[in-house]
């Protein structure tokens, strides 16, 4: 399954997904409770060391934080304007640490292992009428549908091109959704017929 996972053999890769998730929750809460920017900076250094241990290079590390950079800059400016630079440093360091730590878990855990761990975590919901096998069915179907929707969209755009409408969001979205809903009926009938 394609994902953000980077293959490796490190200790972090070998840790069970469930423990990594639990660790992330605990560490994330702790990072929120710490109000000293220097302590957070210390943790940030530790997280960077952990990237090293996982065999991930600096480029990968920077790639994790890059999408959030402009937001972080905006937040820092906002804090600087409303409070002072210490508050700005605390908030931006805290966010960067959280994002990097969470991304580290994602980078070192296979999607299948993560889904299995989450399905186990959802198991207690059985008592509230959640059927785990139906959850698995929905998860695998959603993954299969994404490329299918891309195909249907490409076909509809091609058809609307003849009418000069391939750039109209509405003229593309409506036929795509209608086709998908009809397809959903067929798929449901097929699954029911086989079970």
């Amino acid at each position: 399954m394609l994902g953000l996972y980077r293959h490796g053999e490190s200790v972090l890769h070998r840790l069970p997904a469930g423990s990594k998730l639990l660790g992330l929750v605990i560490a994330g809460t702790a990072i929120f409770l710490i109000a000293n920017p220097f302590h957070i900076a210390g943790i940030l250094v530790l997280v960077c060391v952990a990237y090293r241990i996982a065999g991930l290079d600096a480029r990968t590390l920077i790639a994790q934080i890059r999408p959030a950079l402009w937001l972080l800059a905006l937040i820092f400016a906002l804090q600087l304007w409303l409070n002072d630079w210490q508050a700005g440093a605390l908030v931006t360091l805290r966010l960067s640490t959280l994002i990097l730590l969470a991304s580290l878990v994602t980078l070192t855990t296979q999607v299948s292992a993560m889904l299995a761990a989450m399905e186990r975590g959802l198991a207690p919901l059985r008592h509230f009428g959640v059927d785990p096998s139906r959850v698995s069915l929905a998860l695998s179907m959603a993954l299969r549908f994404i490329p299918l929707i891309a195909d249907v969209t490409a076909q509809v755009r091609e058809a609307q091109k003849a009418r000069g409408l391939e750039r109209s969001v509405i003229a593309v979205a409506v036929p795509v959704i209608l086709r998908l809903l009809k397809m959903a009926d067929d798929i449901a009938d097929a699954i029911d017929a086989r079970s």
Partner: protein
Amino acid sequence: MSTRDIVHIALFAAFTAALGLFPPVTLPLTGVPITAQSMGPMLAGAIIGARKGFLSQALLLVLVAAGLPLLAGGRGGFGVFLGPTGGFLLGWAISAWLIGWLFERNWRNLTALKATAYIFIGGIPALYLIGTAWVAVVVDLSYMQALLANAPFVAGDLVKVAIATIVAMTVRRAYPMMARA
């Protein structure tokens, strides 16, 4: 819950993910990126209803959390939930639920004006209420300050409300889902 319901849930989880494939449009002057993806929860609620709409968005979030790059710009993993926009992601599920609930309750006498109002309520005030709470926590701002910081995004979201309403009403005419339920 029937098999058809499960298929619908998976379909709208995937549809929202597919909306993220469209390149984001950057608003002039403010530089705020607008993605088509947040139309996903609006359409999910308006087309498949409250319960299924909610579950479809929850399903997408599970896949994102599991490490799949399904959000606009190829983002994914746990980091996005802890980042400043994490609250808006959780808000998608609530937004889809609220829009679905309003549509279901008023399905028989739905007008374009009502539909616009419902998608607006679920897609903007309700979503921002939740999203802003998270921004205020992670960015250490007061709620009002965080709300103002989010204001530039409203313009793009208004356009999305308009598009989602037209799409949802057209689909409703051609394929009335809730009338059968």
